[in-house]
């Protein structure tokens, strides 16, 4: 019983040491990490017209829309054309 009490102090001491050790290591890791990968201001959003979505993406979007519309209207895709789409 008496032993247990002594041990409990030992355990407390050990445990507090370990916990501060572990979290201190974490602190330094975070500090290094934040130093290495600093926050960068996101570039101001350019006007829409100036920089459309990458052409390949837009082509694919048009493809999807055209296919679905053609399927829906029961027409061949050649009968109409999606001229321009804008992402919102």
């Amino acid at each position, binding site marked *: 019983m008496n032993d247990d009490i002594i041990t409990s102090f030992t355990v407390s001491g050990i*445990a507090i040491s370990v916990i501060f050790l572990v979290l*201190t290591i974490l602190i330094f890791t*975070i500090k290094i990490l934040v130093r290495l990968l600093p926050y960068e201001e996101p570039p101001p959003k350019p006007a829409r017209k100036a920089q459309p979505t990458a052409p390949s993406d837009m082509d694919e979007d048009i493809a999807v829309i055209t296919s679905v519309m053609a399927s829906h209207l029961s027409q061949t895709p050649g009968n109409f054309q999606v001229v321009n789409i804008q992402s919102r």
Partner: protein
Amino acid sequence: MELTFSGAAIQILESTGFSAIVPGQVVMLIVACVLLYLAIWKKFEPLLLLPIGFGCLMANLPMSMMMSTDDGGLLNFFYQGIKHEILPPLIFLGVGALTDFGPLLANPTTLLLGAAAQIGVYTTLIGAVLLGFDLKEASAIGIIGGADGPTSIFLASKLAPHLLAPIAVAAYSYMSLVPLIQPPIMRWLTTHSERKIKMAQLKPISKKVKIIFPILVTIICCLMLPAVTPLLGMLMLGNLFRESGVTARLHETSETHLINIVTIFLALAVGSSMTAESFLKLETIKIIILGLLAFCMATAGGVLFGKLMCKLTGGKVNPLIGSAGVSAVPMAARVSQKVGAEEDHTNFLLMHAMGPNVAGVIGSAVAAGVFLSLFGDPTVPGPEAHAAIEAVVQSMVQR
């Protein structure tokens, strides 16, 4: 098979609960109703205390087969999820998905406040040993001061499963009492001028850091304290679902329906372990007292370390954010905010307190890991778990 009218009536009468109820169960039914009252009308952590209370209610209706120890019963099935340490890590997956570590990353030294609040854990350990608990039990009781339900349940199921019910109930009850327990201690330990300190704006954190952080924490902490991997690893995985930006589906499920389902099962299972034999004991009262001590000491530890940091930084840290180191996210941070605003209503401590607040979650998990390193057998589940599995299989085979 022949039944006379009177014979059948007697059989039905004998099979009612009235014929079997014992005083201890009546007391536990009242305890269950008190828990339900606190959950519903006092809003004490209702997401957990309501199903815990209802599980306790069902488990103490005699012959209902709803005790956690009733082989083949519904709640025994859920209880296996606690015994085998499956449910608490899944809860932590959802907690991680819900947690923003940004404020902690912006001011990493607040991790020390999360460490300091664990002082409550260790002083309670000593107190528990003084009150006659053995070291394993004392560790499981001490962790109540960590103010994290899943961590408490995880550790108790490993080190002292017979104390699971009172530990879980004490942990969740005191977590909901944070707004009552903490302010007097915070005011008593700090001066007017300390409470008025305004802290510098937190710096923004890059997305990459937020993504790498959970991976690094897992590697570092789980290498040092392997036994805590199920808990801390899943917490960090949930956070990675959140921050990575490429797993929106998994993030959404983790933080909503998965955590909800697991919460229902976990809470019912905890409630079903609140039987008269396991709960109506002197130990329960001791645990409730020790739990309160743990919370107070944790708060004091955090505030006092906050004062130390205040001194060392030349007054840049408001000690009030130290109390948030107990976790109990986000209530403890709100308490810091509120006590600070009482002094000066233009002082906005909330975001600063979120750092130590989430640090407290990591801190408690680490504290649990230290206990498991000392008292648990890291390579195999604890003897209680073995016995439980063996008992289950035995009972299945024998029947």
